[in-house]
């Protein structure tokens, strides 16, 4: 009975791992990718239910203290599964349009999600590393899905080479931390007293690995190319689920393995947050391709989140979790609308200037895009605003006032490039006279739910913020 209870503490991991294998086998028997699609949706919902149950339950460690459940870790699982579920809903139509609707995509998405779930629940460096690897390897393959497009191949190769390189940094950092502290378990790393050169070299390399995964400037070079070249729904998955997973794991490592030395690494995060926010926003200004623009905007969002990490208080961590939730909702949504527009004209319809006048042709899609973009800007009735507000407020409480001022200014820059999309959608005349297709019911339903959630958590954030705050009211 005890082992069943242990399995329940990692129920999302078990369900998604099984689902990946099941979906892979299902294709061999049915030969129809549609079944794989429905099966993966079903398992994703089941895993999400398991994760929600774990979030509401107690916290603790299981499997010989290798994984951590409840609280932050299980909320991370909810984030990952939300991103996965909605990206999956959007995938089918998009892949059918591009002629790449094959069942392996779904098993790879599930394997990637499996890695992310391991990552967010990791309480041990080995589990963390395995999580990052499972996630990355599946994503490398997914990025190259559209093999007949040069951009997709470029994306896969670039992602693979740079990703493998960053994994090397991460692994070396873990090895050095093990060398200086004698343990790979996160709490035991915190207990070690010797903080010599080897410890700091390990921490530095570990940070480098994480910065790459969350695409912080100067490790952001791969992001625009990979996000542009990958199939758009895969990009949505990459930009939300994998980034949330990396950030939640980063929070767990910072708060559980390195709490004593926060004074020192706080400054490192401070500097990286400034660079990430400023450079991400400035480069987004000049992008003409909407996928590249959203890629740079996701770099900028990583910067805002790092402001929260630099604050290192419980309130800041819970604010970051809220931000990640809002970020997942609005980014999957925005990429979903982009994927819808892209399906016209041979899937090469991602220049922002092509969007002229499209807002009136399909009014609902236009409204949805506006909701997601306004939320990314951080305009009040949407979830993005509350996220930004809470992160910056937590940073001010910790006295990082200059950092917050830079963040707010950088965020003001972002208004220009988000709203220029809306200018094209609504204030330019369409000269091509193209006819828009009708999206499938599931597709529009998923986008509408995302938009409603974005609005709901913007208008009524108290429920979730109080709940997330309770993770950090007890010290651990």
């Amino acid at each position, binding site marked *: 009975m005890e082992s069943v209870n242990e399995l329940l503490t*990692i129920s999302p991991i078990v369900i998604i*791992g099984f689902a*990946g*294998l099941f979906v*892979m086998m299902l294709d061999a028997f049915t*030969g*129809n*990718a549609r079944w794989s699609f429905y099966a993966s949706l079903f398992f994703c919902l089941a895993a999400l239910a398991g994760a929600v149950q774990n979030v509401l339950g107690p916290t603790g460690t299981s*499997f*010989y203290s*290798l*994984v951590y459940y409840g609280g932050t870790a299980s909320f991370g699982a909810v984030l990952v599964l939300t991103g996965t579920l909605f990206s999956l809903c959007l995938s089918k139509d998009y*892949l*059918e349009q591009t*002629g*790449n*609707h*094959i069942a*392996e*995509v779904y*098993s*790879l998405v599930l*394997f*990637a999600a*499996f*890695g992310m779930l*391991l990552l967010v629940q990791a309480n*041990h460096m*080995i*589990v963390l590393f*395995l*999580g990052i*690897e*499972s996630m990355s*390897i*599946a994503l*490398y*393959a*997914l990025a*190259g*899905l559209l*093999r*007949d497009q040069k951009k997709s191949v470029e994306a*896969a190769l670039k992602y693979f080479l740079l990703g493998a390189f960053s994994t090397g940094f991460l692994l070396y950092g873990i090895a050095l931390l093990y060398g200086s502290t004698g343990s790979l378990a996160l709490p035991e790393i915190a207990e070690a007293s010797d903080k010599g050169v080897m410890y700091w070299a390990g921490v530095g390399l570990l940070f480098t690995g994480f910065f790459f995964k969350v695409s912080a400037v100067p490790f952001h070079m791969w992001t625009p190319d990979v996000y542009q070249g990958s199939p758009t729904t895969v990009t949505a998955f990459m930009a939300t689920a994998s980034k949330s997973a990396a950030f939640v794991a980063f929070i767990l490592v910072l708060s559980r393995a390195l709490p004593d030395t926060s004074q020192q690494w706080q400054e490192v995060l401070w500097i990286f947050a400034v660079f990430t926010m400023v450079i991400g926003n400035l480069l987004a200004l000049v992008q003409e391709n909407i996928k590249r623009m959203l890629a740079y905007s996701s770099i900028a969002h990583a910067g805002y989140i790092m402001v929260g990490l630099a604050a290192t208080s419980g309130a800041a961590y819970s604010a970051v979790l809220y931000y990640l939730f809002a970020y997942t909702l609005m980014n999957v949504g925005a990429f979903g609308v982009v994927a819808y527009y892209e399906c016209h004209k041979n899937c090469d319809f991602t220049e922002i200037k092509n969007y002229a006048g499209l807002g009136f042709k399909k009014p609902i899609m236009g409204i949805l895009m506006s909701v997601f973009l306004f939320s990314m800007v951080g305009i009040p009735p949407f979830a993005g605003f509350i996220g930004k507000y809470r992160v910056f407020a937590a940073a001010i409480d910790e006295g990082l006032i200059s950092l917050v001022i830079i963040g707010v200014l950088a965020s003001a820059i972002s208004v220009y490039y988000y709203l220029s999309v809306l200018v094209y959608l609504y204030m330019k005349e369409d000269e091509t006279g193209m006819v828009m297709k009708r999206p499938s019911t599931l597709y529009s339903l998923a986008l509408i739910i995302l938009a409603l959630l974005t609005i709901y958590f913007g208008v009524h954030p108290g429920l979730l913020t109080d709940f997330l705050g309770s993770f950090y009211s007890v010290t651990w």
Partner: protein
Amino acid sequence: METFFFFFFATLSIAAAIAMITSRDTVNSALFLVVNLVAVAGIFLLLKAQFLAVVQVLVYAGAIMVLFLFVIMLLNLNSEERFFSEFRIKYGIAFILSVLMLSLLVYAVADATNTLPVLSPDSAHIGTVEALGDTLFVTYILPVLSTAILLTAAVVGALMLAQRKNSGKKES
């Protein structure tokens, strides 16, 4: 005696590694890599990690080296040069003897300056198959199973990228 063997294997592995990167012929390099891997396996054996030593020989010196050799031969790199330098028995003997001499020398110096490494008594039972199995399949069962999924994901990904073009179109 054990300490001397440590020096022998250590010198052998370093010498083979240097020979590997300086050798001009790819196949020779690969064979020197085998020598290096076997020498490292010897060091594992001295540390009483029998399982690791056997795995090192089986997996690295065996499987992965065969893969290397296949790739080298199939790709036909630097075809203008010869694959093998002809193996001359005297070079082989000279290599082994000089490694032996060097290791004796290092051993003698270490002995004279009292810097001989001492094997910790704890290591006697760490590397056995029993201890390893106990660790892997009880404490670390979750990472072991996750590795299985990781490898499956890698295979599925590779197959997806390598399969025939447009095979998915008829299904959609």
